């Protein structure tokens, strides 16, 4: 096993004993990126020189025996819609080509304070709007398990980078499934915390009532360790909630070491909405999902059926609400204060030309749809109707929480699909999110865990959904599942990915 394929907690253990230095870890990650990036194109910007320089600076401190945190020295990537002062933040959009924010996102500040090292900024569907990372102005990212397939989206770059060993940890964002879907497609863990658990200061807004910063890593323990470093209140974000006082990160890590974390599954009530899984789910997914439930039962969990609204309603409500919020949030891209501009005689003409020239097709589609759904005569029928359905979805989950400790569904109804396959019809693409949008609407914590491979050898994800504010309970459960299974140890066949010169053009 190469250093770049290990988890942050494994690397910390090696660095604590002095067996391995931070610069050796970083060199391993950068060498892997050099070898596979031509085929994967996970990054918009790689900051190799500075990342290595910072790692070398940590080497000196590694030798002093000063106590260090759990993600100290870990190479991490950051989705390119999270602001970094020292690196361009493009949102994979031409309208922010070369844009340098005047401040760091709170999560970036906290990531660096914890001693993690940023490798670079990862690719996404423009402004987070997509499920395949094909709607990117720098070109698509490929899935490390099969480069003819998409990595999922919108955080496809982050998930592909972690899966391929081009980073150990990732900070990304999830509005309707943008952390969980790519985690499922790339065979890594993707955690979306409760709404408000993590500050969004410096996250470029898409749909503010659902946007959330999430974590991608190779196991649930790493997700939890990263979450612990970045979570908590922030004076710069009024929606960031107080930290869960019941959580003790060191106890979380210790639970793993004692090997008794799986005790947690004993008697755990796992609710499954079986009736909503009857149609439209690939056989491969259904079979692996049933086996995952068997694994949970074998460890003492009780699987019970819960009634939930058909997810197609949540999906429609999600896309109405997200597009309405997007049409408002993206009004700021007008060429006046930052980003690209097309010059014109009047300000209004400048707005028209700038936005038409530099926003991508999917972004325009969503702005148009949101504008429609908020326009006079249609607001009640679409926006308010969807907001009422959202309330029903929330109550639905609350009712399920009375009979189950955690809910389980597949993360996606299929493994990673072929590049281009769902570009022809927007609704086809939206259907990729059918199982992930519900918890987003309700603000619930949820996680996608690897649950094995399809018959074609592609990773599949198990989604666990927790109670509002129950982030640590959910992470403990996810970690317990990984104590009794080995799916998260599978790695993509990166040795097959030949080194090819990068083909994507740069926005940086």
């Amino acid at each position, binding site marked *: 096993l190469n250093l770049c394929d290990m988890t942050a907690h494994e690397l910390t253990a090696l660095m604590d004993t002095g067996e391995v230095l931070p610069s050796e870890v970083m060199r391993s990650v950068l060498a892997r990126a050099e070898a596979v990036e031509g085929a994967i194109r996970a990054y918009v910007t790689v900051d190799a020189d500075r990342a290595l320089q910072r790692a070398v600076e940590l080497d000196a401190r590694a030798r002093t025996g000063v106590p260090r945190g759990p993600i100290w020295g870990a190479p991490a990537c950051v989705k390119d819609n999270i602001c970094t002062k020292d690196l361009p933040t493009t949102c994979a959009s031409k309208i922010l080509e070369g844009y340098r924010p005047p401040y760091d996102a709170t999560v970036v500040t906290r990531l660096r304070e914890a001693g993690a090292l940023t490798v670079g900024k990862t690719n996404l569907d423009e402004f987070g709007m997509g499920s395949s990372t094909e709607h990117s102005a720098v070109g698509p990212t490929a899935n490390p398990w099969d480069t003819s397939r998409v990595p999922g989206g919108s955080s496809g770059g982050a998930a592909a980078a972690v899966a391929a060993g081009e980073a150990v940890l990732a900070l990304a964002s999830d509005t309707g499934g943008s952390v969980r879907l790519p985690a499922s497609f790339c065979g890594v863990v993707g955690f979306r915390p409760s709404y408000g658990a993590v500050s969004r200061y410096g996250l470029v807004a898409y749909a503010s009532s659902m946007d959330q910063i999430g974590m991608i890593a190779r196991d649930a323990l790493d997700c939890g360790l990263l979450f612990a470093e970045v979570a908590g209140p922030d004076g710069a974000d009024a929606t960031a909630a107080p930290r869960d006082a019941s959580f003790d990160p060191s106890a979380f890590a210790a639970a793993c070491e004692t090997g008794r974390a799986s005790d947690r599954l004993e008697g755990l009530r796992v609710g499954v909405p079986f009736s909503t899984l009857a149609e439209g789910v690939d056989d491969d997914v259904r079979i692996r999902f049933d086996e995952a439930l068997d694994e949970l039962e074998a460890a003492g969990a009780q699987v019970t059926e819960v009634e939930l609204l058909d997810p197609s309603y949540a999906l429609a409500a999600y896309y109405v609400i997200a597009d309405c919020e997007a049409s408002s949030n993206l009004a700021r891209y007008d*060429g*006046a204060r930052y980003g690209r501009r097309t010059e014109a005689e*009047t300000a209004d003409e400048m707005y028209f030309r700038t936005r038409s020239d530099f926003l991508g097709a999917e972004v325009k589609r969503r702005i148009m*749809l949101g504008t429609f759904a908020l326009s006079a005569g249609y607001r009640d029928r679409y926006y308010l109707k969807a907001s009422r359905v959202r309330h029903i979805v929330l109550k639905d989950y609350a009712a399920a929480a009375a009979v189950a400790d955690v809910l389980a569904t597949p993360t996606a109804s299929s493994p990673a699909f072929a590049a281009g396959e769902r570009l022809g019809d927007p609704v086809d693409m939206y259907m990729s999110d059918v199982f992930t949008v519900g918890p987003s609407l309700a603000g619930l914590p949820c996680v996608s865990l690897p649950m094995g491979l399809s018959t074609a050898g592609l990773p599949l994800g198990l989604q666990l959904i927790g109670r509002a504010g129950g982030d640590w309970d959910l992470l403990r459960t996810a970690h317990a599942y990984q104590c009794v299974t080995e799916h998260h140890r599978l790695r993509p066949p990166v040795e097959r990915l030949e080194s090819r010169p990068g083909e994507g053009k740069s926005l940086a």
Partner: protein
Amino acid sequence: VKLGRREVEHLSDLARLRFGAGDAASIARDLARVLEYMRVLDEIDTAGVDPMTRAGAAAPPPRRDEHAEGLGVEDALAAAPRRYRGHFLTPKAI
């Protein structure tokens, strides 16, 4: 909902976007397709249900007003496409 050329023009005016003839036709087709899917929402009875506009039950508590340093003119203007004497410079607005 039928979206004709005039409706699409009206929406693109509101959104400050402009489409060529071909793009306008394809955006009208895509919007019609998506709106057709969204008709499933009509199947749900939402009478008496309040709209939910934020995740989580409660609004964040109000906070004390406290003075804090802002970005400062130089940082705020650093990414401006054009600037003039400490201001953003845009074409004539009126």
